[in-house]
């Protein structure tokens, strides 16, 4: 093994050179690199870093660059404390996005729930949560996610079990979600999951698949009923308006008749009065004149006239004035 003297300032150092030197240097470099690689770590913006020293919790570090004891003495866990986790029940999102796709698999085991009135509702819901206490989350419970799922299912079923089918479908959705959240929160604390339940929300709530067509049919029947009644009402309006028009016509006609009748009477009377006035001044001659005038008019009109001598006792000897031959 050769030695080499190096002069730094006024001091002289004796340093080994040659292959053993390189060998040691190589090891040192590798050790330094591994040490550096395993001792520095970064904690992301939405995370906390949890350090265990020989398996024992020592500290929780905020986001940033940190140092820990290398060589497996300190162990690092990163927990996303700001992240909103979500569990889905009765469905699964296959791919989230602008147009979210849902898994086509059947999750009716999860979603079919017995109601308080022993009907069955298909309920889909989500639970959103954040990790509030990283220590509990990491070390208090084994399999936190399955615990949360168990809790959520149990809670939702207990709540829905207290509501009737119709209440679940209609007016009580919010209250159901609210009650479920209360129970879930209570149990999460009891099991020390270290989670904070941010949201429990009912998604689709409807009658079970096999029953659904019959429910749609009821809605259709309601629509049909309305349509039929509306049509009948329309017909009612149409017919009644028409009848009212007809009635109006009948009355108008009667009024026309009445006016005609009275006017005619007034006219007749006026005519009579005029004649009567003349008649009174010279009754006999007026009467005769009127008689003769009338007779003239009437006789002129008749084509067949027979004049019989008053002395004849029968009508046989005829004088046919029209010249068309005999009585017919």
């Amino acid at each position, binding site marked *: 093994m050769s030695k080499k003297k190096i002069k730094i300032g006024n001091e002289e150092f004796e340093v080994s050179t040659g292959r053993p030197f390189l060998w040691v240097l190589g090891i040192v470099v590798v050790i330094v690199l591994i040490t550096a690689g395993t001792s520095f770590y970064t904690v992301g913006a939405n995370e906390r870093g949890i350090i265990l020293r020989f398996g024992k919790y020592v500290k929780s570090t905020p986001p940033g660059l940190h140092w820990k004891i290398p060589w497996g003495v300190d162990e690092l866990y990163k927990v996303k404390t700001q992240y909103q986790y979500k569990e889905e029940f009765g469905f699964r999102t296959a791919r989230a996005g602008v147009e979210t796709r849902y898994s086509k698999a059947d999750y009716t085991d999860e979603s079919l729930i017995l109601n308080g*009135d*022993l009907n069955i509702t298909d309920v889909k819901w989500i639970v959103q949560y954040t990790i509030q206490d990283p220590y509990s989350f990491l070390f208090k419970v084994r399999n936190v996610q399955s615990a949360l799922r168990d809790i959520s*299912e149990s809670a939702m079923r207990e709540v829905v079990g*207290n509501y009737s089918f119709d209440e679940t479908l209609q007016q009580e959705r919010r209250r159901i979600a609210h009650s479920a959240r209360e129970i879930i929160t209570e149990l999460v604390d009891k099991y020390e999951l270290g989670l904070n339940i941010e949201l429990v929300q009912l998604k689709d709530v409807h009658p079970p698949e096999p029953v659904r067509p019959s429910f749609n049919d009821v809605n259709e029947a309601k629509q049909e009923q309305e349509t039929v009644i509306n049509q009948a009402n329309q017909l009612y309006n149409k017919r009644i308006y028409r009848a009212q028009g007809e009635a109006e016509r009948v009355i108008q006609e009667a009024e026309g008749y009445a006016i005609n*009748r*009275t006017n005619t009477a007034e006219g007749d009377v006026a005519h009579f009065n005029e004649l009567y006035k003349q008649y009174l001044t010279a009754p006999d001659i007026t009467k005769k004149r009127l008689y003769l005038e009338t007779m003239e008019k009437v006789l002129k009109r008749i084509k067949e006239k027979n004049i019989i001598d008053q002395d004849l006792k029968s009508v046989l000897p005829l004088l046919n004035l029209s010249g068309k031959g005999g009585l017919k």
Partner: protein
Amino acid sequence: MKKLTTLVILVIILVFIGTTALFVLDETEQAIVTQFGKPIGDPIMKPGLHFKIPFVQTVTKFEKRILEWDGTPQEVPTEDNKFIHIDTYARWQIEDALEFYKSVHSENQAQSRLDDIIDGAIRDEMAVHTLPNIVRSNRREMEVVTVKEEEEVQDIKEAAQKDSLEVREKIVIDGERDEIRENIIQHVTDVLEETDLGVKLIDFRFKRIDYNTDVQKKVFQRMIAQQNKIAEKYRAIGQGERERIMGKIEQKRKEILSGAYRKGQKIRGEADGEATEIYAEAYNRSETSRNFYEFLRTMTAYENSIDSTSTLLLSTDNELLKYFKSSK
């Protein structure tokens, strides 16, 4: 060179002691130390670095976390002889590692013991409760919607209004789900204490209570039948309401038209009356006017009644023809 060898040997010895005499206990673990199979001291609960005598003492680690127990879904008869499908879960913890080590030794063994204890407790409890009570957990007043029976539908018009076929009633059923759960927890806890398994039950809950598949099908059928009945009823009421409106149209039409006829006739009658009065007033003034009217009207009658087709036989003693035979 000799120095380096010594260093290497020293390191090897240290590592050897480290691995045999020291052990790391994680936050999630607890351990007992045994000496030739005999437990030494209390179970170690604190995480961190611990010491034992190499070769002589052995460390056995156990979970300190809350552990899951997932019940096998099973069919259980209720007091009212309904077979229900029950899925349950529990959470438990190794409370006393020493007892645990002595009695069950491993987690799998413990799970199996829990299966026996909990399943038994479930069956016992279910057998003395009815399904409606098992499903519900409280006495909340529940609104149930049913459909009116035929005889109850009195006013068809009212019934035709939206939704009024439905009857909303409030029902209250005793909920015993919580009570049942507590009984089971109590029972399991008692058994666990008696048997010294070193296991603590944290919680037990029903995850799912469902009808079994056969019953579920029947429930669906029942729901469908009921919906069909409702749909039918809506349609029938729609038709009925239509008929009612059609009848009303006929009635109303006749009422309007006959009313108009009545009014028209009255107007006509009044006019006739008025005309008669006008005539009478003019003609009935005196004997003279009456005679004159009679004469005049007779003349008009001649004029109007005799036309060209009439045949007239005139005697020469007729006033008109009095000059026919002689001018005297």
